[in-house]
């Protein structure tokens, strides 16, 4: 993002986590409240990124292993004659999906709780910041109008 910009910038989805990273703008006269908000958002972003990157990587890896083991059981190679990767059809993959979901359920429950907490906190802080800014602007308006 350009140096002169006064707003946050959001980027393309990350390769591993599919989440879009945000670069937060730090205004020169940032108040304590605004700093708390920015830090909360940064922390949520980092925690989300960590979780999803790891989760997606695990998914891809386990999927590969599953396909490999199944193909081996069927007596096939990973790549067929034309050099394309051999895949299993949806019905065979269904077993894997079911397993993966049940294995990760607990992890997801924990993550859900964390995410909801982050989300509410960030939104609440945003509300506070917006309120403070609005009051400040109104005071400024009143001062200017008075003059």
């Amino acid at each position, binding site marked *: 993002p350009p140096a002169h910009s006064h707003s946050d910038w959001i980027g393309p989805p990350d390769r591993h986590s599919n989440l879009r990273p945000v670069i937060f703008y730090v205004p020169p006269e940032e108040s304590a409240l605004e700093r708390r908000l920015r830090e909360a958002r940064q922390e949520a972003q980092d925690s989300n990124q960590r979780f999803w990157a790891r989760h997606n990587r695990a998914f891809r890896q386990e999927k590969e292993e599953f396909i490999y083991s199944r193909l081996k059981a069927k007596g096939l190679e990973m790549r067929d004659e034309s050099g394309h990767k051999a895949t299993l059809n949806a019905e065979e993959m*269904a077993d894997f999906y079911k397993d993966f979901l049940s294995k990760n359920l607990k992890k997801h429950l924990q993550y859900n709780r964390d995410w909801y907490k982050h989300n509410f906190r960030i939104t609440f802080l945003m509300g506070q910041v917006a309120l403070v800014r609005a009051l400040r602007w109104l005071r400024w308006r009143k001062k200017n109008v008075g003059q």
Partner: protein
Amino acid sequence: MSATRRCCPPRALAGLFVWRVRNTGVPQIPCRFVHIYHVANNRLITFQYFNFLKRMYVTQCNKDLRQRAKPKSDSTVSPFHELQQLDQEKKVVHKISPVSPIHQLGSETSSRNELREMKSAAETEGSVIQVGAESKEDRQWKEMKLRLDELPGILARLSKIKLTALVVSTTSAGFAMAPVPFELTCFLLASLGTGLASCAANSINQFFEVPFDSNMNRTKNRPLVRGQISPLLAVCFAASCGIPGIALLTLGVNPLTGALGAFNIFLYTCCYTPLKRMSIANTWVGAVVGAIPPMMGWTAATGSLDAGALLLGGILYSWQFPHFNALSWGLREDYSRGGYCMMSVTHPGLCRRVALRHCLALIGLSVVAPALDITTWTFPIISLPINLYISYLGFQFYRDADRSSSRKLFFCSLWHLPMLLLVMFTCKKSLLEKEDKGDLPGGGHEAAMEIRLP
């Protein structure tokens, strides 16, 4: 594919493309209908052509229903099916438009199907061009500043406006089926209130699901995921839709409708959305969410929850299952990776059984309708073919459990519901008949009078 008449359709469709690419922020429904209707009338495009187009794209259905609607009607036609192309990660949005009664009344069944096919395929093609341009933009860094000229489009996507429109149409179906004289103001107020409540619920749903939406193909392009709007604004928008919506329903229609609306919002945002990630019971809760809007339409008209309201709710409830279960069959990978507990992933046998069970239940409910004096006895007879057909597809899905049968069932459910409601409306027992029999509920009149008073 008939090659003889290929020259004209591309031009007609090209008109759609250009239009769509240019006007991204404007709700496109009215004009698109005009274009498509035009093309439909010219019958330039054969049924086969569109079937081919449909087959070209692997449909990964999204339930979207659930996620979309305030899901007051979770089910109603999922507006977006995202398709994945094998070569690139382009998202092709395949949209099934809500049924417009105006169009339907004018055409026969076959042309209606054609129209649908055309709409879907045309929109699919239209979206391809749009998506091509979008994916390039996607790879750039964007400033997170709210642009006012983009706001309407952003809010429309945030509130899942197309799904909301479907929800409102099921509410109007409920209103229309109620055995009271038609009240225009009441009807409009109920529709508006329901629409606002639906927008609110959808926005809150999207607010809750940002990281999950980013990981699923169908929902990658939502406004909150893309950072086009801040969470605070999303919540404010939801509040500014929900509170007036419920207030409108409570004060302008009747308190019962308002209570149902508020309950539905709560059910959708606080029960269904978290439950999606915790247990498969979310599907049943979601079906209730979808069943409530027609009941709201009924209570808006009559002021009370009679058997008729429950029947309509029951029909919508039963319909949700074949619709959603078929849809979710193709999304198992995304659901598994995203951590969503859906029957299609964890209990596939149950998934198919439930879908079949509810297809059959639809037949049963259609028979109950005349027994409750809501429709004449011609209704079960006329609706039997479509109910049998969907049950047959449900049975095929149960037996084969593969992608093609799930897709067939899903697409059938899309036209089945509008047709069923339409047939129901045409078989509605007229008030005159009831008056003759002395059956007309007195309460209905009172409610109608109440509504006139400010």
